C-alpha cells in the first residue's frame, strides 16, 4: 500500500521524464537501426549505421580531438582553479565579494556570446589579439593556422570555465574547519603534506563535481567552437559535437542517430569511470 502511494506521488515526474527523455531516446534508437533518408524511405538495416559510424575516419579523428581537448582544458583548469582559489582571502571582506563577482562574470555570459567575443577578439582584420601578436613578431591567424585555432579554442575554454573551478574550490576550502590546519601546524606538516593529506581529500567531493561538469560540458561544447572556428581550418578543430551536427545536417537520419547515440554512450561511460576513480582516491593509501 505504502509503495503504491510513493509511486503515485512520483507519477508526474515519471511521466515528464518519459516524454522528454525516454521517448526521444527510443525514437533515436529506432532511427539508428533504419536506413532513413529525409523521410523518403525507411528500411531496417540492423547495426549497419553503427558500423559505418565507427569506420568513418572523420568520426574517429573527432573523437581523438575531443579527448585531447578535454584532457588539455581539465589539466589547465583544475590546478589553475584550485591555485587561484587559494589566493582568495578566507574572510568575507567587501574586496573578496567583489573579486568573486568579477570571477563569476564569464560564467554569466551565454555560450554563443562568448564565441562571438572570441571570434572578434581573434579576427585578423579587426581583432586585438592578432595586432598584439604581430607586435611580438608572430603571425597569428587561426582561420588558416590549425595549431593556433586549437590553442585559441583552449584559451577560450579556460577563460570561460576556470572561474567555475575557482568558485567550487573556494567554497570547498572555506568549508574545511580551521582546526585541521592548526593540528597540521602542531604536527609540523609541510605545506605540501598539509595539501596532500588535508586540503585535497576534503576538496575531493567538490572537485569530483567540478571535474564531471567540466568533462560533460567540454564534450557538449558546440556554440563557442562553432562560432570561433566552425571546426576549421579544414577539420582541425572538429570536435565531436561539430561532427555530429554536420552529420545531422546531411539528411541521413539513420546515420546521424547512430552517431548521436555513440556520442551519448561515450559521455556516460567516461563520467562513470571518472566518478569511480576520483571517489577511490585516498580511500586506502597510507
Amino acid at each position, binding site marked *: 500500500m505504502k509503495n503504491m502511494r510513493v509511486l503515485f506521488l512520483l507519477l508526474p515526474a515519471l511521466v515528464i521524464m518519459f516524454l522528454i527523455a525516454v521517448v526521444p531516446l527510443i525514437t533515436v534508437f529506432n532511427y539508428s537501426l533504419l536506413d532513413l533518408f529525409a523521410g523518403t524511405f525507411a528500411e531496417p538495416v540492423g547495426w549497419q549505421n553503427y558500423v559505418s559510424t565507427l569506420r568513418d575516419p572523420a568520426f574517429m579523428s573527432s573523437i581523438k580531438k575531443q579527448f585531447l581537448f578535454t584532457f588539455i582544458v581539465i589539466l589547465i583548469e583544475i590546478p589553475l582553479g584550485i591555485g587561484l582559489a587559494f589566493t582568495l582571502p578566507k574572510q568575507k571582506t567587501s574586496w573578496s565579494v567583489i573579486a568573486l563577482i568579477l570571477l563569476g562574470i564569464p560564467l554569466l555570459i551565454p555560450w554563443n556570446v562568448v564565441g562571438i567575443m572570441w571570434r572578434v577578439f581573434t579576427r585578423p582584420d579587426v581583432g586585438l589579439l592578432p595586432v598584439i601578436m604581430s607586435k611580438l613578431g608572430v603571425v597569428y591567424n587561426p582561420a588558416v593556422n590549425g595549431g593556433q585555432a586549437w590553442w585559441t579554442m583552449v584559451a577560450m575554454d579556460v577563460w570561460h570555465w576556470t572561474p567555475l573551478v575557482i568558485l567550487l574550490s573556494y567554497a570547498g576550502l572555506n568549508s574545511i*574547519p580551521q*582546526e*585541521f590546519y*592548526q*593540528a597540521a*601546524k*602542531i*604536527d*609540523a*606538516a*609541510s605545506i605540501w*603534506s598539509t595539501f*596532500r*593529506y*588535508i586540503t*585535497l*581529500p576534503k576538496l575531493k567531493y567538490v572537485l569530483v563535481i567540478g571535474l564531471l561538469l567540466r568533462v560533460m560540458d567540454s564534450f557538449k561544447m558546440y556554440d563557442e567552437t562553432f562560432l570561433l572556428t566552425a571546426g576549421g581550418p579544414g577539420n582541425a578543430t572538429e570536435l565531436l559535437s561539430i561532427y555530429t551536427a554536420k552529420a545531422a545536417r546531411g539528411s541521413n537520419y539513420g546515420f546521424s542517430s547512430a552517431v548521436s547515440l555513440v556520442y551519448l554512450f561515450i559521455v556516460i561511460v567516461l563520467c562513470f569511470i571518472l566518478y569511480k576513480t576520483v571517489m577511490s582516491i*585516498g*580511500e*586506502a*593509501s*597510507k
Partner: protein
Amino acid sequence: MAKIWLKNIRYVYGGKRRKGAEALKGIDLVFEDGCAGALLGPSGCGKTTLLNLISGLLKPTEGKVFFNDTDVTDLSPEERNIAQLFQFPVVYDSIDVYGNLAFPLRNRKLLENEIKERVIEIAKIIGIEQFLRDNPRKLNAGQRQLLALGRGLVRKDTAIILLDEPMTQLDLHQRWFLRKELKKIQQRLNMTMIYVTHDQYEALSFAEKIVVMKDGNIVQEGTPETLYDYPNTSFVGWFIGTPGMNIYNFSIKDTMLDFNDFKINMPQNMKEILKGRTGMLQLGIRPEYVRYSKEEAKEGFFLTKLISIENMGYFKVLTFKVGDTVIKGKVLREVEINEGQETWVSITEDEVNLRIYENGVLITK
C-alpha cells in the same frame, strides 16, 4: 613534559588601544609538571583565550608565558611542542590509523623503524592497536578523539597537552568512555594536561587542579574538594555543584538573620564572624545540607512548600519555596516525599557547612 607558568597575562582583542574587549585582565597561574589541570568557567570568561595563549595561537598583549622557566611568549605553536585536542576529533581521514599516528614523526623525518616502534607503543596506550590498518572513520567518536591525542603523545618531546572542550560532539556513553581513558592516560604518562570546559562535572572528574574563571579573571583555583567545600566566592559556590549552592542575601536585625521571606535566629558560632560587617552579606549552603521535616520541629525551621521533585538517578532534587525564595535540597532517591506538601525547612541546622560571603567573598573559614 613541562611546568606552565603564566605571568601577569593580559589580552585585549583588537590590540592595546581598543577598550572593552579585554578578554584577560592580569592572570598569574602555575600548572606544575605532570599536573592534570582544568580551566573552568561560563562561556565568554576567557578560558579559551587563555588556552590559545598557552598553545601559542595568540600572543599576550602583556605578560609572559614560561614552560619550565623558558620564556616561550614569542614562540609559535609548533616551536612550543604542545599537542591540542579540539572540540571535534581532528583526524586525517585520507590516511589510516597508523598513518595518522606516524604523521607527526614522518614530518620530523624520523626513521621508519623508529616510527613503527613508537606508533605501536602509543596505539597500545590509547587502546586502538587492533585498528592500525583501518581508516579512522571506522573508529567511534571517542576513539577518534583518542587518536588525535595519540598524534600528540607519539612525539617524545611533547611538553603539554591542551584539551579544548573535547567532549562537545560526543554522546553520553562516549563521554564516559573518553573521560575514563583520558584520566588513565594522564596518570600513566604523567603528562601536563590542561582541560578547558564549561562543564563542571568534566572538570571535577578529570583535574586535580581546577582554575575557575569569570570575566577574564581567575576567581579561585584549587582541588575539586576545595572548590566544592570552600568556594571562596558566592559565584564559585553557585557555579559548581548540581544544583549549585543555595545563596541568600540577608541582613542582621538584632539577633536575627533577616532573609526577607523568613527570619532565623543567628547561629551561635556566627556571632563572632558577623560582628561589625557592613557589606552585602550572603549565606551559602549546599543543597545536601538543607534539612527538612514534616512537622514543626526545632529552632531554625520555617514553613515552606515543596513545589517540585526532580529525579536525578541516585538522588532527588527538592525545590522548596517560601515567598519568592527558592531553596534547593538534595536527598537520596529512597527517601519518600510528595510534591505539594507544606514542609518545615532549616538551612542553618548544619552549622559547619554554612558559608558566609561579604560582597561575594568568603568570610567563614
